[in-house]
């Protein structure tokens, strides 16, 4: 384990003078940010305008709702494996899949990565005192919380939450054959609209902080990849959520006013109990709008995970991230491509036939930048000095999980193979690997990594390892076999696991459920670890992982409001100067000037 705090923050003051005499660092372009310093307990801990607190609030709220999502998934698995127990009926089962999907994708992972990690890390890693508009940032969290309450409230209204699947496809979502087709749906859509509004407030903050409020010397190409991932994901979100907002708004009007945006003439009973009398709308329009948002959404979740895992791997392997420039360009390329591939979710939705060629080609192109990222993570480990810390274990688990999930994406993204596999358990397995398990593993790794920065205490390593083993091995055993159920043709979203003489997966089915229960319960270890360590964990020393990025170089740990004390840090190098030849330590923080490490032959600063 690392020993001693090699670098003193006081160096910063020296660096400041050194740079003001030399011409290497440009002068400050804007005056120091003025912050609102809280005057009461309420404005410090509840209505806090400090991005770090807001980040932690986001984290807690998103994790709380994720517990609901997790409980729902356990209920669904029990129902599938042991239908005799009757824990759910078809209505509640479909409500469970809907809520589980919506919660996990939007209210948990999006909020957690962008709201949680974004708020906590961006100002610290960019060398800013706070987000650019702390008040708006605070509002963002409270609107998010409101959207969560509205979402949960749908369990209390007549009919319960909507049961149309998280894709909310019309006309089904509105007609009487689906539970929660009036109140549940209205609350779901209101909740989504609130989420988008709240997110936009936060998202603008993250983007502008990265673009306009970096410290002196912090160029874009010196930012840690975590910031790059979160930053680009936020841009995607700001451009993709509008499609969801518009799609949701029109669905809301179709639901409560009986408009025909998506509704052709059909024979069905509406949510008000009368015959549906709509005419001429196109259900495909909703699918396009939904997936124009929905596919970028996948990368809204994945890109922050990519970024964070790059930092975890580099820090804990004590080696510079390999091919930093390529990593950045890969993130940007993935983001750009994510907007032109959306209809690969609709290969068998009955769209214009030639779309298949276009969308399959663009989709598989994403494999190239994603592949680059996979190679570069490996090449970072190669010839490194790997510490098997808990964050590193989770990062490695992410690698293998995402490798598997990414490769099965080649089945789903390719139009010819997708015909047979879409809407089967293969899809379920694929997307749980890529945007379920893999990002969550990164979340765990990131929590173990940055917990000391947030609380000043270390998480328990032993419990962390137990948590890692059960979670990783368990999750892999849950989802990997599902691919083969999919090959058999077992359709997803069936209340009863489909079995026939040709396709039977009994045995496997029960096995998956049992593992699910074990993995779900093992998360209690994680929560226990967090609560216990926050109270009585081992005190962390400054910069416990010997990392280079700025967040560990604050004068106090945990950092105070305003982060940097009197003077902002000045940045001289990229955040990956590990084991630079000629340097006395195996790491050189970003705010150490070249004159302080004269012997070091850093190639890329």
């Amino acid at each position: 384990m690392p020993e001693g705090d090699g670098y003193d923050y006081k160096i910063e003051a020296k660096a400041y003078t050194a740079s003001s005499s030399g011409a290497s660092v440009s002068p400050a372009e804007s005056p120091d940010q003025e912050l609102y310093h809280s005057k009461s307990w309420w404005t410090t801990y509840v209505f806090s305008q400090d991005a770090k607190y807001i980040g932690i609030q986001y984290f807690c709220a998103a994790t709380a709702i994720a517990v609901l999502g997790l409980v729902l998934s356990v209920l669904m698995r029990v129902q599938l494996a042991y239908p005799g127990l009757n824990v759910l009926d078809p209505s509640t089962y479909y409500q469970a899949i809907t809520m589980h999907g919506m919660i996990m994708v939007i209210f948990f992972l999006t909020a957690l990565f962008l709201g949680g990690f974004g708020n906590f890390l961006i100002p610290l890693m960019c060398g800013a005192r706070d987000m650019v508009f702390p008040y708006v940032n605070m509002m963002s969290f409270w609107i998010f919380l409101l959207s969560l309450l509205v979402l949960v409230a749908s369990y209390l209204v007549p009919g319960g939450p909507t049961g149309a699947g998280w894709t909310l496809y019309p006309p089904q979502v509105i007609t009487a054959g689906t539970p929660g087709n009036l109140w549940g749906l209205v609350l779901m859509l209101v909740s989504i609209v609130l989420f988008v509004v709240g997110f936009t407030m936060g998202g603008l903050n993250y983007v502008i902080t990265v673009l306009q409020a970096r410290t002196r010397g912090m160029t874009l190409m010196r930012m840690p990849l975590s910031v790059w991932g979160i930053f680009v994901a936020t841009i995607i979100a700001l451009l993709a959520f509008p499609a969801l907002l518009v799609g949701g708004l029109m669905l809301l009007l179709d639901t409560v006013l009986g408009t025909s945006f998506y509704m052709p003439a059909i024979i069905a009973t509406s949510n008000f109990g009368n015959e549906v009398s709509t005419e001429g709308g196109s259900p495909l329009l909703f699918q396009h709008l939904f997936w124009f948002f929905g596919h970028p959404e996948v990368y809204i979740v994945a890109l922050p995970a990519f970024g964070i895992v790059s930092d975890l791997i580099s820090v804990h392997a004590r080696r510079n991230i390999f091919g930093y420039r390529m990593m950045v360009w890969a993130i940007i390329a993935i983001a750009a491509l994510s907007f032109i591939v959306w209809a690969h979710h609709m290969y068998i939705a009955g769209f214009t036939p030639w779309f298949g060629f276009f969308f399959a080609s663009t989709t598989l192109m994403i494999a190239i930048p994603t592949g680059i990222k996979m190679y570069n993570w490996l090449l970072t480990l190669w010839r490194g000095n790997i510490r098997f810390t808990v964050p590193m274990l989770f990062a490695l688990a992410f690698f293998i999980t995402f490798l598997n999930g990414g490769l099965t994406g080649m089945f789903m993204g390719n139009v010819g193979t997708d015909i047979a596999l879409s809407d089967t358990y293969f899809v379920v397995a694929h997307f749980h690997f890529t945007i379920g398990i893999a990002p969550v593993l990164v979340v765990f790794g990131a929590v173990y990594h940055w917990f000391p920065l947030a609380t000043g205490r270390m998480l328990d390593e032993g419990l962390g390892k137990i948590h890692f083993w059960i979670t990783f091995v368990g999750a892999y055993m849950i989802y990997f076999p599902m691919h083969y159920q999919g090959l058999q043709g077992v359709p997803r979203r069936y209340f009863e696991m489909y079995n026939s003489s040709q396709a039977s997966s009994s045995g496997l089915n029960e096995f998956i459920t049992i593992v699910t229960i074990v993995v779900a319960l093992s998360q209690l270890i994680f929560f226990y670890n967090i609560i216990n360590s926050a109270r009585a964990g081992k005190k962390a020393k400054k910069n416990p992982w010997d990392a280079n990025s700025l967040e560990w170089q604050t004068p106090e740990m945990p950092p105070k409001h305003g982060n940097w004390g009197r003077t902002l840090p000045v940045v001289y190098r990229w955040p990956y100067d590990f084991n630079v030849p000629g340097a006395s330590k195996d790491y050189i923080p970003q705010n150490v000037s070249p004159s302080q490490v004269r012997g070091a032959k850093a190639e890329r600063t």
Partner: protein
Amino acid sequence: MNRSTLPKGWDGFAHDWAADQKVFKGMSWGKAMMWIFLLSDTFIFSCLLISLLTGRASTAVSWPDASVVFGLEVFGVSVPLLLIAIMTFVLISSSGTMAIAVKYGYEKNRKLCTIFLLLTALCGAAFVSMQAFEWTKLIVHEGVSPWGNPFGAEQFGAFFFMITGFHGTHVTIGVIFLLIMARKVWRGDFDSGRRGYFTTMKSDYLAIEIMGLYWHFVDLVWVFIFAFFYLW
């Protein structure tokens, strides 16, 4: 930062993106934030108009003729799109006055800035009133509703009320903020750096420029709505 020493054009593009601290050199945080917000908002309106395109082009029912539906009878002569034309001119005028208000904001001319902000708000309010009149006329007299109308495809009313409603909401919010701004300018908040009520940050004339961006955007959107909804 002295902007005049920075490289210009594409060199400037490369320089700004490779530089530290700020990508948008010389641009305040608030203005950058408004620009990015408008970009996001552009996507919202684009999605609305794309939905209109899809809804209209995929329905087999005939689409009502906008110039007849929105025609007005003036002295017994029916003039197509008359009200819409007036609304368009009013909104463009408000954009003109806004641009001038921003100019006087730059120059810290308290009096003229206030006057032009108020003029802009007046035009905006006139626009919203005319829209309210139009809505009333359509709903009460012509029987157009979001779920049906006597002229043709149901989607006509649905898209009309949704798109103009969404735009009208933007205008209304803009008018409210214009009035707030006008009051602040008149009171001298921007000269004295008085602190805002909610955020407790100092007021600055930059706010006028940001307000201007928003207002011009609302006008910009109307240009597209006018072309795609009324003229198509």
